[in-house]
């Protein structure tokens, strides 16, 4: 397994108390595989990703438990500079907001080239040629002429493609893309997802795609992990989860989206609001909103039940959820 996150816990110490942002996350990605992490805002998707990348704000953040195994070795037990080396060359991250993650005062070519100068010891001239090659590869028109342009001179879609170029530059084995297309229009989103998928296939990378868009997930993922209040509440291969969700939250999400191919009747709406991480409800965190909740759900936190091979659900009533289709 390329990456395996085991029982990860992250908390933030804030003025109002301890916010339990990640409460026992388990997921894994193999080479060439796409894992989609799905969840509403605040469910802990980005914090988990930041912990994997080693870019978590500490303090106020603190990793209070768990393991992050990369190619079998626990990143959390590594020395700082070893970790930094892995972060630079073996894993890379793509952020939602390309404009604020690119350096505004350096040309795009300098930023792309720098990777090769620093990590591969290339000359500046060779590095620039590499930058042009990369820009070509992510289909920036007239790459040769535009290599000296600054980030703000590119459109949103182009900037996101440049981010992808930076992430791909050193051919890492793992890419984490955190809402890479959320800020983009659908036609541009399609261009960018297409490119990402193509490069992933070519380089046989593991890809963690973080998103709240059930549509994007269905289009590209091999498997899905659904997060709620800092936990993975369901994980499954993509086809199965859409056909037959085994957790009431997943099911509610799937039912609540309007569909392009259907004229709506009333939409199903999950009642209530996502929980406050300072006061996560006891038992199953979803219980105040769950139409299937019983006494037992308010007691112990439900463990992950094995629903089928490669399928897990953190619901006491996963079987009933599956059956009540």
């Amino acid at each position: 397994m390329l990456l395996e996150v085991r029982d990860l816990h992250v908390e933030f110490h804030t003025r109002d108390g301890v916010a339990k942002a990640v409460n026992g996350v388990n997921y894994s990605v193999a080479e060439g595989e796409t894992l989609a992490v799905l969840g509403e805002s605040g469910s802990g998707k980005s914090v988990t990703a930041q912990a994997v990348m080693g870019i978590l704000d500490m303090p106020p953040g603190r990793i209070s438990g768990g393991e992050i195994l990369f190619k079998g070795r626990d990143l959390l037990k590594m020395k700082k500079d070893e970790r930094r080396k892995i972060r630079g060359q073996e894993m890379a991250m793509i952020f939602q907001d390309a404009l604020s993650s690119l350096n505004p005062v350096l040309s795009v070519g300098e930023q792309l080239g720098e990777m090769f100068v620093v990590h591969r010891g290339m000359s500046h001239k060779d590095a620039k040629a590499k930058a042009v090659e990369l820009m070509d590869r992510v289909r920036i028109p007239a790459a040769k002429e535009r290599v000296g342009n600054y980030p703000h001179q590119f459109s949103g879609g182009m900037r996101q493609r440049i981010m992808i170029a930076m992430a791909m530059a050193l051919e890492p084995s793992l890419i984490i893309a955190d809402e890479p297309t959320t800020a983009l229009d659908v036609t541009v989103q399609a261009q960018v997802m297409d490119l990402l998928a193509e490069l992933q296939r070519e380089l046989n990378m593991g890809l963690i795609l973080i998103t709240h868009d059930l549509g994007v997930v269905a289009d590209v993922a091999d498997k899905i992990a659904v997060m709620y209040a800092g936990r993975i509440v369901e994980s499954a291969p993509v086809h199965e989860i859409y056909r037959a969700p085994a957790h009431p939250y997943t099911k509610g999400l799937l039912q609540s989206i309007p569909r392009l191919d259907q004229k709506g009747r009333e939409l199903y709406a999950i009642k209530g609001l996502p929980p406050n991480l300072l006061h996560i409800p006891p038992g199953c965190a979803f219980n105040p909103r769950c139409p299937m909740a019983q006494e037992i759900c308010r007691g112990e936190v439900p463990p992950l039940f094995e629903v089928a091979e490669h399928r897990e659900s953190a619901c006491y009533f996963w079987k009933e959820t599956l059956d009540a289709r």
Partner: protein
Amino acid sequence: MHADHSGRKEAREEGEKARALLAKSRAGSAAAGDEPILEVRDLVKHYPLTQGILIKKQIGAVKAVDGVSFDLAAGETLGIVGESGCGKSTVAKMLVHLEQPTAGAIKYKGEDITKLSGRALKAVRRNIQMVFQDPYTSLNPRMTVGDIIGEPYEIHPEVAPKGERRRKVQDLLDVVGLNPEYINRYPHQFSGGQRQRIGIARGLALNPEIIVADEPVSALDVSVQAQVVNLLDRLQAEFGLAYVFIAHDLSIVRHISDRVGVMYLGRIVEIGSDEQIYDHPTHPYTQALLSAVPVPDPAAREHRERIILHGDVPSPANPPSGCRFRTRCWKAQERCELEVPLLAVPAVFRLADTPAGHDSACHFAEEKQVVPPEGLLEAPGETTAEEDGPSQGVDGENGPAPSGSTRAR
């Protein structure tokens, strides 16, 4: 103002019972075939581009909206879709008079409101209200919810005399599904979805006939989005509202709209009923837009043909000649560069009785099905929605025992 309108206002104040009555009386008047209450004609908004600090010289213009026409019937929903920057919000702002058009007409019940001023304008503005996109920034953080929702009464005191305002605001909170006791709270004490409800309550305060909603659910999480969409649906049925519903999410627009207009670079390129646009699109841009929408069904991957457009939307300061879409269109020919295609039923469909026969601004309009027909895709968990969620027969204390406990870890 109008007799029927003040009658409606009274009815509303009667509360629940009258509401039901109202809904019934309205149900009789089908939206289609009615006189439009809003007719928008050749609407234009150009923002000047200037150079120089002391002496400003105009060097061009951002053609944010460049000739938009449509009708809106009473009680109907017109969806407007299009990519960022195509002019949707600018149209919305002109409809509610937050921006003055550079040219064109907006006729409310036959009267061009762009030519009105003073009291006549004020009276009309009351009937066209706006709900904004961003529930985080569109509410003043220092005002209580009661003051925010009641603010329109400061400008239109005739709608609610001072003594009645508090009760009216509490009624409005109730109507949008918020606790009337929250009247003294501040916006930061509410979640995004709740804030959007506050914005909607303010939009309803003056009993408008038309609500212009600019991306009202775009900033909300999926599970909360559905709550707000259902609320908008319910309010429309209850109060006979007409909506101009602006969004970039084509699935939501289909859900809520009777008719849909597709915008590109300041113009409407195709407009028709939801079925015409989604199932029988004839404009290449609409087809590309629809094909790019990710469908939440992995089984659809094999069925769908995706049209990946190349390049970006050109600048509205310098739009392409002829057809504005031609720089990204895979069908473009010389004629597209020379001749502006008009928004009309394309000649090929004019004589045939087909859903493809609707307004489409393309010289080479052709029908192309890009959304798989309904039913082809398997809908997940096909439960019909009910007030309190699907009843799955596990309520109460006597539910089934928990599923087998094969712990995975």
